[in-house]
Protein backbone atom coordinates (compact mmCIF):
# COMPACT_ATOMS: atom_id res chain seq x y z
CA UNK A 1 0.00 0.00 0.00
CA UNK A 2 2.75 2.44 0.95
CA UNK A 3 4.69 1.33 -2.03
CA UNK A 4 1.80 2.39 -4.25
CA UNK A 5 1.52 5.74 -2.49
CA UNK A 6 5.17 6.48 -3.00
CA UNK A 7 4.93 5.60 -6.67
CA UNK A 8 1.79 7.70 -7.18
CA UNK A 9 3.38 10.67 -5.49
CA UNK A 10 6.47 10.47 -7.70
CA UNK A 11 4.51 10.24 -10.91
CA UNK A 12 2.37 13.22 -9.90
CA UNK A 13 5.48 15.25 -9.19
CA UNK A 14 6.85 14.66 -12.67
CA UNK A 15 3.89 15.44 -14.92
CA UNK A 16 5.41 18.67 -16.19
CA UNK A 17 8.54 16.99 -17.52
CA UNK A 18 9.43 15.20 -20.74
CA UNK A 19 10.40 12.27 -18.53
CA UNK A 20 8.21 9.86 -16.68
CA UNK A 21 9.57 8.53 -13.43
CA UNK A 22 8.42 5.07 -12.43
CA UNK A 23 9.45 3.30 -9.24
CA UNK A 24 10.36 -0.22 -10.09
CA UNK A 25 11.56 -2.23 -7.12
CA UNK A 26 10.66 -2.99 -3.53
CA UNK A 27 11.13 -0.39 -0.80
CA UNK A 28 10.99 -2.64 2.28
CA UNK A 29 14.61 -2.16 3.34
CA UNK A 30 14.55 1.64 3.09
CA UNK A 31 14.82 3.94 6.10
CA UNK A 32 11.46 5.64 6.79
CA UNK A 33 11.74 9.43 7.00
CA UNK A 34 9.28 12.31 7.02
CA UNK A 35 9.68 15.53 5.07
CA UNK A 36 6.93 17.59 6.67
CA UNK A 37 5.41 20.09 4.19
CA UNK A 38 7.39 23.28 4.68
CA UNK A 39 5.51 26.34 5.95
CA UNK A 40 5.16 28.69 2.99
CA UNK A 41 5.16 32.42 3.65
CA UNK A 42 3.46 34.89 1.27
CA UNK A 43 4.70 34.52 -2.31
CA UNK A 44 7.26 31.81 -1.59
CA UNK A 45 7.00 28.45 -3.41
CA UNK A 46 6.69 24.99 -1.89
CA UNK A 47 9.79 22.85 -2.40
CA UNK A 48 8.75 19.84 -0.31
CA UNK A 49 7.67 17.60 -3.25
CA UNK A 50 11.07 18.00 -4.89
CA UNK A 51 12.93 17.24 -1.64
CA UNK A 52 10.75 14.14 -1.18
CA UNK A 53 11.42 12.99 -4.73
CA UNK A 54 15.19 13.59 -4.39
CA UNK A 55 15.50 11.65 -1.14
CA UNK A 56 13.43 8.75 -2.53
CA UNK A 57 15.63 8.48 -5.61
CA UNK A 58 18.74 7.93 -3.45
CA UNK A 59 17.55 4.40 -2.78
CA UNK A 60 18.17 4.82 0.94
CA UNK A 61 15.04 6.51 2.24
CA UNK A 62 11.29 6.08 2.09
CA UNK A 63 9.57 9.40 2.79
CA UNK A 64 6.17 8.74 4.39
CA UNK A 65 3.09 10.28 2.83
CA UNK A 66 1.73 13.53 4.24
CA UNK A 67 -1.72 11.96 4.73
CA UNK A 68 -0.20 9.55 7.29
CA UNK A 69 1.46 12.26 9.40
CA UNK A 70 -0.09 12.86 12.85
CA UNK A 71 1.20 16.43 13.16
CA UNK A 72 2.72 18.98 10.79
CA UNK A 73 5.49 20.86 12.65
CA UNK A 74 7.57 23.46 10.78
CA UNK A 75 10.39 23.81 13.34
CA UNK A 76 12.23 21.48 15.75
CA UNK A 77 10.55 22.94 18.84
CA UNK A 78 7.13 22.00 17.42
CA UNK A 79 8.11 18.33 16.95
CA UNK A 80 6.28 15.81 19.15
CA UNK A 81 8.63 12.79 19.08
CA UNK A 82 5.86 10.37 20.01
CA UNK A 83 4.01 11.19 16.75
CA UNK A 84 7.02 10.05 14.73
CA UNK A 85 7.96 7.00 16.82
CA UNK A 86 4.46 5.61 16.23
CA UNK A 87 5.13 5.85 12.51
CA UNK A 88 8.62 4.28 12.94
CA UNK A 89 10.07 7.40 11.34
CA UNK A 90 13.82 7.65 11.93
CA UNK A 91 14.39 11.19 10.66
CA UNK A 92 12.08 14.20 10.36
CA UNK A 93 12.79 17.20 8.15
CA UNK A 94 10.92 20.41 8.96
CA UNK A 95 11.22 23.94 7.63
CA UNK A 96 9.77 26.99 5.98
CA UNK A 97 10.19 28.93 2.75
CA UNK A 98 10.07 32.74 2.57
CA UNK A 99 11.39 35.71 0.63
CA UNK A 100 13.91 37.76 2.60
CA UNK A 101 14.47 41.54 2.71
CA UNK A 102 16.89 41.33 -0.23
CA UNK A 103 14.31 39.55 -2.40
CA UNK A 104 16.02 36.15 -2.16
CA UNK A 105 14.11 32.91 -1.80
CA UNK A 106 15.12 31.27 1.49
CA UNK A 107 14.51 27.72 2.71
CA UNK A 108 15.12 27.33 6.43
CA UNK A 109 15.20 23.71 7.58
CA UNK A 110 16.10 21.33 10.40
CA UNK A 111 16.91 17.62 10.26
CA UNK A 112 15.88 15.74 13.39
CA UNK A 113 16.96 12.30 14.60
CA UNK A 114 13.82 10.85 16.20
CA UNK A 115 15.58 8.12 18.22
CA UNK A 116 18.23 10.49 19.63
CA UNK A 117 15.67 13.35 19.97
CA UNK A 118 18.34 15.60 18.55
CA UNK A 119 18.66 18.20 15.78
CA UNK A 120 21.33 16.91 13.37
CA UNK A 121 21.42 19.86 11.06
CA UNK A 122 19.95 23.33 11.01
CA UNK A 123 20.50 25.78 8.19
CA UNK A 124 19.32 28.05 5.41
CA UNK A 125 19.67 27.79 1.66
CA UNK A 126 19.25 31.03 -0.30
CA UNK A 127 18.70 31.45 -4.01
CA UNK A 128 16.90 33.27 -6.77
CA UNK A 129 13.14 33.64 -6.41
CA UNK A 130 12.57 32.33 -9.93
CA UNK A 131 14.59 29.17 -9.32
CA UNK A 132 12.94 27.19 -6.48
CA UNK A 133 14.06 23.90 -8.07
CA UNK A 134 17.77 24.60 -7.56
CA UNK A 135 16.98 25.68 -4.01
CA UNK A 136 15.09 22.42 -3.37
CA UNK A 137 17.94 20.24 -4.72
CA UNK A 138 20.44 22.09 -2.52
CA UNK A 139 18.23 21.52 0.54
CA UNK A 140 18.07 17.81 -0.40
CA UNK A 141 21.89 17.72 -0.66
CA UNK A 142 22.26 19.11 2.87
CA UNK A 143 19.51 16.91 4.36
CA UNK A 144 21.08 13.83 2.77
CA UNK A 145 24.49 14.77 4.18
CA UNK A 146 23.00 15.26 7.65
CA UNK A 147 21.35 11.81 7.59
CA UNK A 148 24.14 9.78 5.95
CA UNK A 149 27.40 11.71 6.27
CA UNK A 150 27.68 11.56 2.46
CA UNK A 151 27.24 14.71 0.34
CA UNK A 152 24.03 14.68 -1.69
CA UNK A 153 24.29 14.76 -5.49
CA UNK A 154 20.81 16.12 -6.17
CA UNK A 155 22.14 19.39 -7.62
CA UNK A 156 24.05 17.51 -10.30
CA UNK A 157 22.96 17.15 -13.90
CA UNK A 158 23.09 14.46 -16.52
CA UNK A 159 24.05 14.61 -20.19
CA UNK A 160 22.44 12.12 -22.58
CA UNK A 161 21.36 11.72 -26.18
CA UNK A 162 17.74 11.73 -27.36
CA UNK A 163 17.26 9.82 -30.63
CA UNK A 164 14.03 10.58 -32.49
CA UNK A 165 12.60 8.99 -35.65
CA UNK A 166 15.37 6.39 -35.84
CA UNK A 167 15.77 4.89 -39.35
CA UNK A 168 13.44 7.58 -40.80
CA UNK A 169 14.52 10.38 -43.14
CA UNK A 170 13.99 12.93 -40.36
CA UNK A 171 16.08 10.98 -37.82
CA UNK A 172 17.33 13.39 -35.18
CA UNK A 173 19.98 13.07 -32.45
CA UNK A 174 20.00 15.68 -29.66
CA UNK A 175 22.69 16.02 -27.02
CA UNK A 176 20.80 17.07 -23.90
CA UNK A 177 21.60 18.20 -20.39
CA UNK A 178 18.98 17.92 -17.65
CA UNK A 179 18.78 17.84 -13.87
CA UNK A 180 19.66 14.35 -12.59
CA UNK A 181 15.90 13.66 -12.26
CA UNK A 182 15.22 14.52 -15.91
CA UNK A 183 13.78 17.99 -15.21
CA UNK A 184 14.86 21.12 -17.07
CA UNK A 185 15.96 19.31 -20.18
CA UNK A 186 18.11 21.61 -22.35
CA UNK A 187 19.29 20.79 -25.89
CA UNK A 188 23.02 21.34 -26.44
CA UNK A 189 23.47 20.04 -29.97
CA UNK A 190 21.11 18.71 -32.64
CA UNK A 191 22.36 16.52 -35.49
CA UNK A 192 20.97 14.27 -38.18
CA UNK A 193 23.91 11.95 -37.44
CA UNK A 194 24.58 9.85 -34.32
CA UNK A 195 26.00 11.50 -31.19
CA UNK A 196 27.82 9.29 -28.69
CA UNK A 197 29.82 9.18 -25.48
CA UNK A 198 29.21 12.52 -23.78
CA UNK A 199 31.92 13.00 -21.13
CA UNK A 200 32.14 15.79 -18.55
CA UNK A 201 35.30 17.64 -17.58
CA UNK A 202 35.88 17.37 -13.84
CA UNK A 203 34.96 21.06 -13.34
CA UNK A 204 31.67 20.50 -15.19
CA UNK A 205 32.40 23.33 -17.64
CA UNK A 206 33.10 21.25 -20.73
CA UNK A 207 31.51 18.29 -22.43
CA UNK A 208 33.35 16.08 -24.92
CA UNK A 209 31.32 13.96 -27.33
CA UNK A 210 31.57 11.92 -30.50
CA UNK A 211 29.61 12.97 -33.57
CA UNK A 212 29.36 11.74 -37.14
CA UNK A 213 28.64 15.07 -38.83
CA UNK A 214 31.52 14.64 -41.28
CA UNK A 215 30.40 11.11 -42.24
CA UNK A 216 32.61 9.27 -39.78
CA UNK A 217 33.35 9.60 -36.07
CA UNK A 218 35.07 12.69 -34.66
CA UNK A 219 35.62 13.99 -31.12
CA UNK A 220 34.43 17.49 -30.24
CA UNK A 221 34.53 19.53 -27.03
CA UNK A 222 31.82 22.04 -26.20
CA UNK A 223 32.34 24.80 -23.64
CA UNK A 224 29.06 24.87 -21.72
CA UNK A 225 29.56 28.48 -20.59
CA UNK A 226 30.13 29.98 -24.05
CA UNK A 227 28.37 27.31 -26.11
CA UNK A 228 31.40 27.14 -28.41
CA UNK A 229 32.47 23.82 -29.80
CA UNK A 230 35.89 22.76 -31.08
CA UNK A 231 37.14 19.73 -32.95
CA UNK A 232 39.58 17.62 -30.91
CA UNK A 233 40.25 14.62 -33.16
CA UNK A 234 39.13 13.62 -36.65
CA UNK A 235 41.86 11.28 -37.87
CA UNK A 236 41.25 8.55 -40.39
CA UNK A 237 39.25 5.74 -38.80
CA UNK A 238 37.62 5.81 -35.38
CA UNK A 239 37.85 8.87 -33.11
CA UNK A 240 35.85 8.07 -30.00
CA UNK A 241 35.36 7.41 -26.28
CA UNK A 242 36.77 10.70 -24.87
CA UNK A 243 37.51 10.87 -21.13
CA UNK A 244 38.86 13.93 -19.28
CA UNK A 245 41.60 13.23 -16.76
CA UNK A 246 40.67 14.15 -13.16
CA UNK A 247 42.89 17.28 -13.28
CA UNK A 248 41.60 18.25 -16.72
CA UNK A 249 45.08 18.34 -18.27
CA UNK A 250 44.63 15.35 -20.59
CA UNK A 251 41.88 13.61 -22.50
CA UNK A 252 42.04 9.87 -23.10
CA UNK A 253 40.45 8.70 -26.34
CA UNK A 254 40.33 5.91 -28.90
CA UNK A 255 41.89 6.34 -32.34
CA UNK A 256 42.29 3.74 -35.07
CA UNK A 257 44.48 5.97 -37.27
CA UNK A 258 47.46 3.63 -36.83
CA UNK A 259 45.58 0.55 -38.00
CA UNK A 260 43.15 -0.53 -35.29
CA UNK A 261 41.52 0.95 -32.19
CA UNK A 262 44.01 1.79 -29.42
CA UNK A 263 43.99 4.10 -26.40
CA UNK A 264 45.70 7.49 -26.75
CA UNK A 265 45.95 10.58 -24.58
CA UNK A 266 46.09 14.17 -25.74
CA UNK A 267 47.50 16.94 -23.58
CA UNK A 268 44.92 19.74 -23.73
CA UNK A 269 47.44 22.61 -23.50
CA UNK A 270 49.87 21.34 -26.15
CA UNK A 271 47.71 19.02 -28.28
CA UNK A 272 50.53 16.45 -27.96
CA UNK A 273 49.15 12.97 -28.60
CA UNK A 274 50.62 9.92 -26.90
CA UNK A 275 49.85 6.30 -27.63
CA UNK A 276 49.00 4.35 -24.47
CA UNK A 277 48.13 0.90 -25.83
CA UNK A 278 49.46 -0.84 -28.92
CA UNK A 279 47.72 -4.11 -29.59
CA UNK A 280 46.12 -5.64 -32.66
CA UNK A 281 42.92 -6.27 -30.66
CA UNK A 282 40.19 -3.70 -29.99
CA UNK A 283 41.13 -1.37 -27.12
CA UNK A 284 38.39 1.10 -26.22
CA UNK A 285 36.27 2.82 -23.54
CA UNK A 286 39.12 4.26 -21.44
CA UNK A 287 38.31 5.93 -18.12
CA UNK A 288 40.69 7.47 -15.58
CA UNK A 289 41.20 6.34 -12.06
CA UNK A 290 40.95 9.25 -9.64
CA UNK A 291 44.69 9.70 -9.17
CA UNK A 292 45.21 10.06 -12.92
CA UNK A 293 47.90 7.35 -12.91
CA UNK A 294 45.88 4.53 -14.44
CA UNK A 295 43.27 4.11 -17.14
CA UNK A 296 40.91 1.19 -17.15
CA UNK A 297 39.53 0.13 -20.53
CA UNK A 298 37.86 -2.60 -22.59
CA UNK A 299 39.95 -4.91 -24.78
CA UNK A 300 39.27 -8.17 -26.60
CA UNK A 301 42.97 -9.04 -26.65
CA UNK A 302 42.18 -12.20 -24.67
CA UNK A 303 39.61 -13.40 -27.21
CA UNK A 304 36.54 -11.73 -25.68
CA UNK A 305 35.89 -8.21 -24.39
CA UNK A 306 37.29 -7.87 -20.86
CA UNK A 307 38.38 -4.99 -18.65
CA UNK A 308 42.05 -4.11 -18.29
CA UNK A 309 44.06 -1.48 -16.47
CA UNK A 310 47.08 0.39 -17.83
CA UNK A 311 49.59 2.57 -16.01
CA UNK A 312 49.92 5.73 -18.14
CA UNK A 313 53.64 6.09 -17.31
CA UNK A 314 54.94 2.53 -17.50
CA UNK A 315 52.21 1.45 -19.99
CA UNK A 316 52.07 -1.87 -18.13
CA UNK A 317 48.71 -3.61 -18.68
CA UNK A 318 46.93 -5.94 -16.23
CA UNK A 319 43.62 -7.73 -16.62
CA UNK A 320 40.78 -6.99 -14.16
CA UNK A 321 37.80 -9.15 -15.16
CA UNK A 322 37.50 -12.87 -15.81
CA UNK A 323 33.78 -13.59 -15.24
CA UNK A 324 32.09 -14.66 -18.47
CA UNK A 325 32.74 -13.70 -22.08
CA UNK A 326 31.68 -10.05 -22.14
CA UNK A 327 32.74 -7.34 -19.69
CA UNK A 328 33.00 -3.78 -21.03
CA UNK A 329 32.59 0.00 -20.56
CA UNK A 330 34.00 0.39 -17.06
CA UNK A 331 33.36 3.47 -14.90
CA UNK A 332 35.41 4.06 -11.76
CA UNK A 333 33.45 4.69 -8.55
CA UNK A 334 34.30 7.89 -6.61
CA UNK A 335 35.88 5.78 -3.84
CA UNK A 336 38.49 4.73 -6.46
CA UNK A 337 38.37 1.17 -5.15
CA UNK A 338 35.43 -0.14 -7.17
CA UNK A 339 34.15 0.10 -10.71
CA UNK A 340 30.90 -0.60 -12.53
CA UNK A 341 30.73 -2.12 -16.00
CA UNK A 342 28.55 -3.97 -18.50
CA UNK A 343 28.51 -7.74 -17.94
CA UNK A 344 26.89 -10.35 -20.14
CA UNK A 345 25.26 -13.24 -18.30
CA UNK A 346 23.10 -16.07 -19.61
CA UNK A 347 20.05 -13.81 -19.27
CA UNK A 348 21.43 -10.72 -21.00
CA UNK A 349 23.56 -7.62 -20.53
CA UNK A 350 23.56 -6.16 -17.02
CA UNK A 351 25.43 -3.55 -15.00
CA UNK A 352 27.84 -5.14 -12.54
CA UNK A 353 30.05 -3.83 -9.75
CA UNK A 354 33.37 -5.10 -8.42
CA UNK A 355 36.54 -3.94 -6.68
CA UNK A 356 39.60 -2.77 -8.58
CA UNK A 357 41.86 -5.03 -6.56
CA UNK A 358 40.01 -8.07 -7.88
CA UNK A 359 39.51 -9.53 -4.42
CA UNK A 360 35.78 -10.07 -4.55
CA UNK A 361 33.35 -11.45 -7.09
CA UNK A 362 31.29 -9.07 -9.21
CA UNK A 363 27.81 -8.14 -8.04
CA UNK A 364 25.00 -7.60 -10.54
CA UNK A 365 23.18 -4.28 -10.06
CA UNK A 366 20.61 -4.33 -12.87
CA UNK A 367 18.20 -6.93 -14.14
CA UNK A 368 17.07 -5.98 -17.63
CA UNK A 369 18.19 -7.66 -20.85
CA UNK A 370 19.97 -4.83 -22.69
CA UNK A 371 21.61 -2.67 -20.03
CA UNK A 372 24.56 -0.48 -21.02
CA UNK A 373 26.35 2.87 -20.61
CA UNK A 374 26.61 2.93 -16.80
CA UNK A 375 27.47 6.26 -15.20
CA UNK A 376 27.85 6.94 -11.50
CA UNK A 377 26.85 10.00 -9.44
CA UNK A 378 29.81 11.91 -7.95
CA UNK A 379 28.86 10.78 -4.42
CA UNK A 380 28.85 7.12 -5.48
CA UNK A 381 25.36 6.50 -4.09
CA UNK A 382 23.39 6.28 -7.33
CA UNK A 383 24.17 5.23 -10.85
CA UNK A 384 22.36 5.63 -14.13
CA UNK A 385 22.38 3.41 -17.20
CA UNK A 386 20.51 3.00 -20.45
CA UNK A 387 18.33 0.02 -21.26
CA UNK A 388 15.46 -0.95 -23.52
CA UNK A 389 11.86 -1.35 -22.45
CA UNK A 390 8.99 -2.03 -24.88
CA UNK A 391 11.33 -1.33 -27.82
CA UNK A 392 12.23 2.08 -26.41
CA UNK A 393 15.57 3.31 -25.15
CA UNK A 394 15.15 4.53 -21.58
CA UNK A 395 17.39 5.56 -18.68
CA UNK A 396 17.31 3.86 -15.34
CA UNK A 397 18.56 5.27 -12.04
CA UNK A 398 19.48 2.66 -9.46
CA UNK A 399 21.03 3.01 -6.04
CA UNK A 400 24.37 1.25 -5.90
CA UNK A 401 22.99 -0.59 -2.89
CA UNK A 402 20.42 -1.91 -5.38
CA UNK A 403 17.08 -1.38 -3.62
CA UNK A 404 15.31 1.19 -5.76
CA UNK A 405 15.17 1.75 -9.47
CA UNK A 406 13.63 4.68 -11.33
CA UNK A 407 13.03 4.85 -15.03
CA UNK A 408 13.36 8.01 -17.07
CA UNK A 409 11.66 7.84 -20.44
CA UNK A 410 10.94 10.26 -23.24
CA UNK A 411 7.65 10.28 -25.14
CA UNK A 412 9.36 11.35 -28.36
CA UNK A 413 12.25 8.90 -28.75
CA UNK A 414 15.03 6.79 -27.31
CA UNK A 415 17.18 8.18 -24.50
CA UNK A 416 20.70 6.74 -24.49
CA UNK A 417 24.26 7.37 -23.30
CA UNK A 418 23.73 8.99 -19.86
CA UNK A 419 26.74 10.75 -18.35
CA UNK A 420 26.34 11.91 -14.76
CA UNK A 421 27.98 15.28 -14.13
CA UNK A 422 30.54 15.94 -11.41
CA UNK A 423 29.56 18.30 -8.57
CA UNK A 424 28.74 21.60 -10.28
CA UNK A 425 29.07 25.22 -9.14
CA UNK A 426 25.81 26.18 -7.42
CA UNK A 427 23.69 29.29 -7.83
CA UNK A 428 22.38 28.82 -4.29
CA UNK A 429 24.24 29.23 -0.98
CA UNK A 430 24.01 27.23 2.23
CA UNK A 431 24.57 28.68 5.67
CA UNK A 432 24.68 26.40 8.70
CA UNK A 433 23.01 27.73 11.84
Amino acid at each position, binding site marked *: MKRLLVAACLIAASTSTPFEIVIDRGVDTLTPIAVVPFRIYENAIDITPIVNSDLSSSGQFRPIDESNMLSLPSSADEVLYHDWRVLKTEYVVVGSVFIDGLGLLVAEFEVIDVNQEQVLQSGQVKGHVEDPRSLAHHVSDEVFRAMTGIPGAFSTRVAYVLVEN*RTQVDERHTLMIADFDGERETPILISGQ*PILSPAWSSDGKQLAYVSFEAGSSAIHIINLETGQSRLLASFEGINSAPAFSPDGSHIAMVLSRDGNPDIYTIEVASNVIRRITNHRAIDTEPVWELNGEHLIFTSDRGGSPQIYRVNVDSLRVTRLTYEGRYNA*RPRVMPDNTHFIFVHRSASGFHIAWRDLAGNRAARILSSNVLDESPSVAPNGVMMMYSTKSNRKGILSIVSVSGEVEYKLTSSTGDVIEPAWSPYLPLTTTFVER
Partner: protein
Amino acid sequence: MSHLKNGAWIALLLVCGLLTACASQTGCGAPEEVPVVVDQRPEKDTKPPEVPKPEVEEVPDFIELPDGTLVAVDSDGSVIRSVFNFEFDESEIGSSDFRVLQQHAARLNRNRDQSVAIDGHCDERGTREYNLALGERRAMAVQDFLLANGVRPSQMSARSFGEERPVDTGSDEAAWAKNRRVELKYE
Protein backbone atom coordinates in the same frame (compact mmCIF):
# COMPACT_ATOMS: atom_id res chain seq x y z
CA MET B 1 5.02 -12.60 -75.79
CA SER B 2 6.62 -10.07 -73.52
CA HIS B 3 8.74 -12.83 -71.99
CA LEU B 4 10.22 -13.59 -75.37
CA LYS B 5 10.97 -9.92 -75.95
CA ASN B 6 12.76 -9.59 -72.62
CA GLY B 7 14.71 -12.77 -73.21
CA ALA B 8 15.89 -11.57 -76.58
CA TRP B 9 16.94 -8.23 -75.13
CA ILE B 10 18.96 -9.88 -72.34
CA ALA B 11 20.63 -12.18 -74.88
CA LEU B 12 21.68 -9.16 -76.91
CA LEU B 13 23.05 -7.49 -73.78
CA LEU B 14 24.97 -10.63 -72.92
CA VAL B 15 26.60 -10.78 -76.37
CA CYS B 16 27.54 -7.13 -76.21
CA GLY B 17 28.82 -7.59 -72.67
CA LEU B 18 31.10 -10.39 -73.81
CA LEU B 19 32.35 -8.30 -76.71
CA THR B 20 33.21 -5.32 -74.52
CA ALA B 21 34.78 -7.58 -71.91
CA CYS B 22 37.06 -9.01 -74.61
CA ALA B 23 37.82 -5.56 -75.99
CA SER B 24 39.12 -4.46 -72.61
CA GLN B 25 41.39 -7.43 -72.11
CA THR B 26 44.35 -8.88 -73.92
CA GLY B 27 44.47 -12.50 -74.95
CA CYS B 28 40.90 -13.01 -76.04
CA GLY B 29 39.36 -12.46 -79.47
CA ALA B 30 41.13 -9.84 -81.57
CA PRO B 31 39.23 -6.58 -81.49
CA GLU B 32 39.52 -6.03 -85.26
CA GLU B 33 37.36 -9.10 -85.80
CA VAL B 34 34.37 -7.31 -84.30
CA PRO B 35 32.10 -6.68 -87.26
CA VAL B 36 31.89 -2.95 -87.45
CA VAL B 37 30.59 -1.41 -90.60
CA VAL B 38 32.55 1.64 -91.59
CA ASP B 39 31.18 4.00 -94.15
CA GLN B 40 34.10 5.04 -96.35
CA ARG B 41 32.11 6.96 -98.92
CA PRO B 42 32.64 10.68 -99.14
CA GLU B 43 30.22 12.74 -97.12
CA LYS B 44 26.94 13.59 -98.75
CA ASP B 45 24.17 15.87 -97.65
CA THR B 46 21.93 12.80 -97.27
CA LYS B 47 22.15 11.17 -93.87
CA PRO B 48 24.00 7.83 -93.75
CA PRO B 49 22.02 4.87 -92.44
CA GLU B 50 22.15 4.46 -88.65
CA VAL B 51 24.82 1.95 -87.66
CA PRO B 52 24.49 0.44 -84.19
CA LYS B 53 27.77 0.64 -82.31
CA PRO B 54 28.50 -2.16 -79.78
CA GLU B 55 29.64 0.22 -77.00
CA VAL B 56 26.26 1.94 -77.00
CA GLU B 57 24.71 -1.36 -75.89
CA GLU B 58 27.44 -2.06 -73.26
CA VAL B 59 26.15 -3.53 -69.99
CA PRO B 60 27.20 -1.07 -67.30
CA ASP B 61 28.98 -2.29 -64.16
CA PHE B 62 27.02 0.22 -62.11
CA ILE B 63 23.62 1.81 -62.53
CA GLU B 64 21.92 4.63 -60.70
CA LEU B 65 18.62 3.72 -59.07
CA PRO B 66 15.67 6.14 -59.19
CA ASP B 67 16.52 7.27 -55.61
CA GLY B 68 20.02 8.29 -56.75
CA THR B 69 22.00 5.44 -55.20
CA LEU B 70 24.66 3.82 -57.34
CA VAL B 71 24.65 0.00 -57.35
CA ALA B 72 26.75 -2.71 -58.94
CA VAL B 73 24.84 -4.81 -61.47
CA ASP B 74 25.30 -8.26 -62.91
CA SER B 75 25.63 -8.96 -66.64
CA ASP B 76 21.88 -9.61 -66.76
CA GLY B 77 21.21 -6.21 -65.23
CA SER B 78 20.29 -7.52 -61.77
CA VAL B 79 21.61 -5.69 -58.70
CA ILE B 80 24.51 -7.48 -57.00
CA ARG B 81 23.98 -7.94 -53.25
CA SER B 82 25.94 -5.31 -51.33
CA VAL B 83 25.09 -6.28 -47.73
CA PHE B 84 27.13 -8.92 -45.89
CA ASN B 85 26.12 -10.27 -42.49
CA PHE B 86 28.17 -11.45 -39.50
CA GLU B 87 27.85 -13.53 -36.35
CA PHE B 88 27.68 -11.84 -32.91
CA ASP B 89 31.01 -10.28 -31.89
CA GLU B 90 32.60 -11.75 -35.07
CA SER B 91 34.16 -10.12 -38.11
CA GLU B 92 34.78 -13.20 -40.27
CA ILE B 93 33.30 -13.01 -43.78
CA GLY B 94 30.98 -15.92 -44.56
CA SER B 95 32.24 -18.23 -47.33
CA SER B 96 28.95 -17.70 -49.19
CA ASP B 97 29.88 -14.03 -49.48
CA PHE B 98 33.23 -14.64 -51.23
CA ARG B 99 31.80 -14.97 -54.76
CA VAL B 100 29.60 -11.88 -54.36
CA LEU B 101 32.49 -9.79 -53.01
CA GLN B 102 34.64 -10.98 -55.93
CA GLN B 103 31.98 -9.67 -58.32
CA HIS B 104 32.24 -6.26 -56.61
CA ALA B 105 36.03 -6.45 -56.80
CA ALA B 106 35.89 -7.21 -60.56
CA ARG B 107 33.74 -4.14 -61.19
CA LEU B 108 35.98 -1.89 -59.08
CA ASN B 109 39.02 -3.27 -60.93
CA ARG B 110 37.44 -2.43 -64.30
CA ASN B 111 36.51 1.05 -63.06
CA ARG B 112 39.54 2.47 -61.28
CA ASP B 113 37.91 5.86 -60.82
CA GLN B 114 34.97 4.31 -58.98
CA SER B 115 35.25 4.47 -55.19
CA VAL B 116 33.30 2.62 -52.53
CA ALA B 117 32.53 3.27 -48.87
CA ILE B 118 32.61 0.15 -46.72
CA ASP B 119 30.30 0.72 -43.74
CA GLY B 120 30.46 -1.63 -40.76
CA HIS B 121 27.49 -2.02 -38.41
CA CYS B 122 26.60 -4.01 -35.28
CA ASP B 123 23.48 -5.12 -33.47
CA GLU B 124 22.37 -3.27 -30.35
CA ARG B 125 23.80 -5.78 -27.87
CA GLY B 126 26.93 -4.89 -25.97
CA THR B 127 28.44 -1.46 -25.46
CA ARG B 128 28.28 1.34 -28.03
CA GLU B 129 31.96 2.17 -28.13
CA TYR B 130 33.03 -1.47 -28.37
CA ASN B 131 30.51 -1.86 -31.19
CA LEU B 132 31.98 1.16 -32.95
CA ALA B 133 35.33 -0.67 -32.94
CA LEU B 134 33.72 -3.98 -33.92
CA GLY B 135 31.94 -2.30 -36.85
CA GLU B 136 35.29 -1.00 -38.06
CA ARG B 137 36.82 -4.45 -37.73
CA ARG B 138 34.02 -5.87 -39.95
CA ALA B 139 34.52 -3.09 -42.50
CA MET B 140 38.29 -3.74 -42.48
CA ALA B 141 37.71 -7.46 -43.06
CA VAL B 142 35.74 -6.63 -46.22
CA GLN B 143 38.29 -4.01 -47.26
CA ASP B 144 41.11 -6.55 -46.87
CA PHE B 145 39.17 -9.07 -48.98
CA LEU B 146 38.64 -6.53 -51.77
CA LEU B 147 42.29 -5.49 -51.52
CA ALA B 148 43.38 -9.11 -51.94
CA ASN B 149 41.16 -9.23 -55.04
CA GLY B 150 42.91 -6.33 -56.72
CA VAL B 151 40.94 -3.28 -55.59
CA ARG B 152 43.22 -0.31 -54.87
CA PRO B 153 43.30 1.24 -51.38
CA SER B 154 42.54 4.65 -52.92
CA GLN B 155 39.17 3.32 -54.13
CA MET B 156 38.01 2.26 -50.65
CA SER B 157 37.15 3.92 -47.36
CA ALA B 158 36.19 1.77 -44.37
CA ARG B 159 33.86 3.43 -41.86
CA SER B 160 32.01 2.27 -38.76
CA PHE B 161 28.65 3.35 -37.39
CA GLY B 162 28.68 0.80 -34.56
CA GLU B 163 25.12 0.05 -33.45
CA GLU B 164 23.86 3.54 -34.33
CA ARG B 165 22.36 2.82 -37.75
CA PRO B 166 20.16 -0.28 -37.47
CA VAL B 167 18.06 -1.37 -40.45
CA ASP B 168 15.65 -3.10 -38.06
CA THR B 169 14.90 -1.47 -34.69
CA GLY B 170 13.54 -4.70 -33.19
CA SER B 171 15.18 -6.47 -30.24
CA ASP B 172 15.09 -10.08 -31.40
CA GLU B 173 17.41 -12.52 -33.15
CA ALA B 174 15.97 -11.73 -36.59
CA ALA B 175 16.54 -7.98 -36.20
CA TRP B 176 20.01 -8.45 -34.70
CA ALA B 177 21.06 -10.76 -37.56
CA LYS B 178 20.04 -8.10 -40.10
CA ASN B 179 21.83 -5.31 -38.24
CA ARG B 180 25.20 -7.12 -37.96
CA ARG B 181 26.42 -6.18 -41.42
CA VAL B 182 28.79 -4.46 -43.79
CA GLU B 183 27.27 -2.37 -46.56
CA LEU B 184 29.11 -1.41 -49.73
CA LYS B 185 28.11 2.05 -50.86
CA TYR B 186 29.31 3.33 -54.23
CA GLU B 187 29.98 7.03 -54.31
